[in-house]
């Protein structure tokens, strides 16, 4: 594995490979010495053109647990505010000896450009690009589902037949896109639920079903997993729904809907939570909620991805 850019080009076997390595990494975090010497002497540059708390900290923790050095770069207070472009910023980091670049960018495809332009030699990991993909989030979601379903016996298991509802702002969500590709590759049945204004125009090539009515979808699918997406106020420059209250009433996971979910279903949310809008506090804080596990598992999964891109011979392997 040379780069980690998207989940749509990830094969079932390589996805399972990453999840299994993440299991080993999760075992490490239960030890007294939570550190491995694996990436000693390598440098991971976090290049964040968009705000982020958990993804940036999660990558930083993952790199440090593998003994890599971490350079963190965020646009605020950097030369980007003086007008420096992606190419020059990336090359500056590469000259400082970065072996891997973790990039979050507001433009879809920015990590792809970095990986394919030949500007830098470093491995590129996509930490969220525009409304395109967020592959490590999808991997940690799959990892979390697998651990909830199979516990300690998760290794080697896929998600065949697991029914997943993804609810909310599909059109702006890179988390939804990455999850659609990864979860269906692993054998899950994915159903998207959203107001029609928040569903992408052409879904004919997506391996999913689409519902507009959340209550109907819950009754119909009896979901094993319900994944609530954040309403992305910063990406909404037009009115996609009449009011926050109306959205919450029709598509939010409120207390009453939460009570109607199958008793062993898993509630997930990529964070940050808009409590009271897309998810109620009762649902977010219940034992069925995996929100906090998602954060913990994020570190293990990102360790596995860093291990994958930074070890092995750096040639011929696309």
């Amino acid at each position, binding site marked *: *594995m040379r780069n980690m850019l998207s989940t749509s080009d990830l094969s079932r076997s390589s996805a399972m*490979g990453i999840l*299994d*390595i993440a299991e*080993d990494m999760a*075992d490490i975090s239960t*030890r*007294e*010495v939570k*550190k*491995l*010497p*694996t990436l000693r002497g390598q440098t991971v540059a976090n290049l964040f053109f968009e705000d982020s708390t958990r993804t940036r900290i999660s990558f930083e923790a993952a790199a440090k647990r*593998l003994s890599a050095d971490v350079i963190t770069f965020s646009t605020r207070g950097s030369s980007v505010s003086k007008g420096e472009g992606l190419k020059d910023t990336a090359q500056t980091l590469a000259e400082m000896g970065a072996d891997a670049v973790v990039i979050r960018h507001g433009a879809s495809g920015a990590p792809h450009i970095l990986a394919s332009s030949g500007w830098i030699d470093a491995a590129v990991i996509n930490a969220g690009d525009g409304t395109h993909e967020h592959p490590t989030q999808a991997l940690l979601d799959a990892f979390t589902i697998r651990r909830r379903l199979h516990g300690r016996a998760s*290794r080697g298991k896929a998600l065949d037949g697991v029914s997943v509802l993804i609810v909310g702002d599909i059109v702006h969500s890179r988390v939804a896109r990455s999850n659609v590709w990864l979860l269906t590759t692993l054998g899950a049945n994915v159903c998207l639920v959203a107001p029609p204004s928040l569903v992408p125009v052409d879904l004919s090539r997506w391996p999913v079903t689409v519902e507009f009515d959340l209550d109907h979808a819950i009754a119909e699918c009896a979901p094993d997993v319900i994944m609530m997406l954040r309403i992305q106020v910063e990406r909404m420059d037009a009115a996609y729904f009449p009011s926050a209250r109306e959205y919450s009433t029709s598509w939010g996971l409120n207390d009453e809907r939460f009570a109607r979910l199958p008793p062993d279903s898993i509630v997930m949310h990529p964070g940050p939570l808009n409590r009271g809008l897309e998810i109620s506090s009762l649902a977010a804080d219940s034992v069925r909620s995996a929100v906090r596990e998602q954060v913990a598992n994020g570190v293990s999964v990102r360790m596995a991805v860093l*291990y*994958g891109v*930074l*070890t*092995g*011979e*750096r040639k011929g*392997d696309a």
Partner: protein
Amino acid sequence: MRTVLQQLDIAKALTRISHEVIEANRGVDALIILGIPTRGAVLAQRIAATIDRIGYRDGSTPPATEVGSLDVTMYRDDLSRNVTRTPARTTLPSNIDDRTVVLVDDVLCSGRTIRAALDALGDIGRPRVVRLAVLVNRGHRELPIRADYVGKNLPTSTDERISVHLAEIDGDDCVTISSERGVT
């Protein structure tokens, strides 16, 4: 390809190693047998089972010898030289602090795997003693490491290849030696 150890030879070697482990440890107290995956872990299971069989002559039923596996992938020094390795699982039967840990591997060659294993042990705890048992000891050491218990010493040249087959993984028990030049 030449077979150098048959099933019976392997069984005898493991029995002898088990006796030596008990003798050096003056009994079976505080022993933990840790195999290095994949085949070392299988050998560790067999040695632990043999120790259980021979360790108590007085007819009492003792607690079974503690056995586990220790994956060293993350501690290797050749990770950037080979294709990405898939790690195996580490299972520890209990805390290794102040215990006698016997590491088990199938073939001892450069010694780099054992170096990685010692580093891995250091991150898990502080054993009282660490010993090393190997089924086959071939030469070509690159580090100052030696085995305490050896099933068979096989002086080889660098272009020869040793393959250890174990019934649990490969369906049969044998150790073969082949020349890489011969296999084209």
